[in-house]
């Protein structure tokens, strides 16, 4: 194939310009979709939580898990607990303001992110973001790669290391109850009104109103409003959130967007690289073919 340099440069220029014109719109896409707030969520007001752990019991019962460890024992709060394959939500106790006069209880579970890292990272869509909002888990698809665990900034998905046939476990917002028109088990069971279930946009209103009306009672921030692009579970607190075990260094970039540029580049590399490489090959051959051969002139 005889391709001279000028033709190639013209071709490359044309391709380059058109590809730039169709450049990935990933740059604009950083941010949750406009109708994200229509999704379901939960408001957790830590100033109202009394640490009864009724949510833990209800969650375990509704999801067919063993009863929570050390039920009814105060000693359970001595160590900070995390979720586990058999405990989708846990309540932890933290010292309150003013030298721990009134301790603060914080319920910890899947944050049901608006743009979840776990679901976007899953190579088989085992973890899947539903249009309703909750992130569900399709057991039949999971291959056990644990990339969702790497991608969750809150460290929520838990792997069944002890089993030979393991799955990944986390709170799925009781989708089985949502289907029946019921609220998640934890919200239904909460006696103190610390847990409120509803649409994210309504809950944001409620939260803002509460903070506005009781400015001394709350830190002026709703955790989950913007963190990691926004989460379905929102928190209110009387003390700074870093003191309650929340990751303090989260940016507002949605986790699903972190790999977008990388992924967007793939089809472009698949398109541009082969002709470019073939051209290099063709040039090399063309140069070889036209090189003067002295052996002809003996």
């Amino acid at each position, binding site marked *: 194939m005889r391709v001279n340099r000028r033709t190639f440069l013209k071709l490359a220029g044309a391709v380059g310009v058109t590809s730039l014109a169709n450049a990935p719109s990933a740059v604009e896409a950083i941010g949750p979709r406009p109708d994200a707030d229509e999704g379901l969520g939960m408001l957790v007001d830590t100033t109202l939580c009394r640490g009864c752990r009724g949510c833990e019991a209800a969650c375990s019962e509704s999801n067919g898990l063993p009863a929570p460890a050390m039920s009814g024992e105060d000693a359970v709060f001595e160590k900070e607990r*995390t979720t*586990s394959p058999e405990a989708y939500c846990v309540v932890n106790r933290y010292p309150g303001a003013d030298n721990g006069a009134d301790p603060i209880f914080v319920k910890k579970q899947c944050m049901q992110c608006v743009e979840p*890292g776990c*679901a*976007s*990272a*899953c*190579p*088989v*869509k*085992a973890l899947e973001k539903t249009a309703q909002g909750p992130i569900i888990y*399709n057991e039949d*698809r*999971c*291959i*056990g*790669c*644990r*990339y969702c*665990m*790497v*991608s969750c*900034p809150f*460290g929520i998905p*838990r*792997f*069944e*290391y*002890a*089993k*030979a*046939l*393991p*799955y*990944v476990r986390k709170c799925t917002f009781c989708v089985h109850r949502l289907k029946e028109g019921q609220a998640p088990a934890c919200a239904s069971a909460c006696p103190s009104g610390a847990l409120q279930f509803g649409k994210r946009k309504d809950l944001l209103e409620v939260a803002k109103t509460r903070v506005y009306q009781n400015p001394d009672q709350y830190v002026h921030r709703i955790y989950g409003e913007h963190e990691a692009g926004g989460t379905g579970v929102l928190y209110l607190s009387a003390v700074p959130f870093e003191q309650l075990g929340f*990751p303090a*260094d*989260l*940016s507002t970039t949605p*986790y*699903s967007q*972190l*790999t977008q*540029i*990388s*992924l967007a580049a*793939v089809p472009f*590399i*698949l398109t541009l*690289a*082969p002709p470019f*490489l*073939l051209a*290099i*090959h063709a040039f*090399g*051959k063309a140069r*070889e073919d036209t090189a003067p051969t002295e052996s002809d002139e003996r």
Partner: protein
Amino acid sequence: MNERVDSSAGTFSWPRENLLMGMTLREYLRSLVTPFNAVAGLILLAGLPVIVYRFAYGLGAVTNLSQVTPWGLWIGFDVLAGVALAAGGYVLASTVYLFGLKQYYPVLRPAILTGFLGYFLVVVGLLLDLGRPWRLPYPVVYSYGVTSVLFEVAWCVLLYFTVLSLEFSPTVFEWLRWKKARRRAAGITIGVVVLGVVLSTLHQSSLGALFLTAPTKLHPLWYSPFIPLYFFVSSIIAGLAMVIVETAVSHRIFHDQLSGGKHVDIDAITLGLGKAASVVLFSYFFIKLLGLADGGHWNLLNTPYGRWFLVELLGFVLFPCLVFAHAVRERDATLVRATAAVTVIGVVINRLNVSVIAFNWNVANPYIPSWMEVLTSVTIVTIGLITFRWIVNRMPVLREHPDYQGMH
């Protein structure tokens, strides 16, 4: 028991010629008693039961992985470092077939074999690490998580493994003397090489992109939006260095295969590869500096992890770069080989840093691999070495097949 068996007597036997290298079964078995085989045998004897145990009792029984650290040595070494060190296949293939530097042909087939076996062992490592390994094909045949970088990695690796098989098939067909198949396989070489380079570019960089989803877990000095670029460029470095090392080792071990053939200037090839490695390392050093500037975390260089970062950047990138340059200029092939070994170690360190060492750097109980994880990784490498040797002893990888002299 001292009968002398004349193996050349009697009729031609295909299994004896091509599988037993012309020896009788008894001679062959006797030839297997070597120190290397003894050590390899011990490793397999210890490692294979551990592998069975892992499948019987799950990951928790065998590894030190935890809910906080879901990825460990198997991902960091067997998968990430394995893929990087197998990059010699696409680097040499493009050198010979796309850039037309035919003088590197003698090291091309071993490089492709190393690549082929490398990726095969990566799949083995994955089968060990996945919670449900029988579901490995799912991203390709069952459920498509298209938003995931890991999905793209799965596809790319599958396709590239196919490409590598096609690239290696002429060697196999020469061994089997299937002339037509060999001709057909050789005919598609350019297309297959181009595809191989493109797929390699994609998955080498995507393996780095995996860690973009963990900005709070990877140490700021290593976390960068340019990780994909770093992994791609360092894969070229890894490929070049690995070919230099593997050539040096092969030529010493398989010396008997080479003396009969045409004289091959391995030193010139080594120097050429060393020069390329030097230039790529030089560029890689500077793009790492650019990443440092972009991140703006200069102050972190004075912390323990910062000093480790500098060890990786200065000791295993800048230093080999300069030594390669010096060695090439002085035409010192031995120094090039030594530097290549250091470079290989450096790439492995980089992959381990990103996935295991600087990952979760600020966690209370840092992850340390269990002895069983280490043993299984060593077992996998041993299997690779044994397979490499088996193939090189029988197929025209280091030597030319008598029917195909000079045909490339």
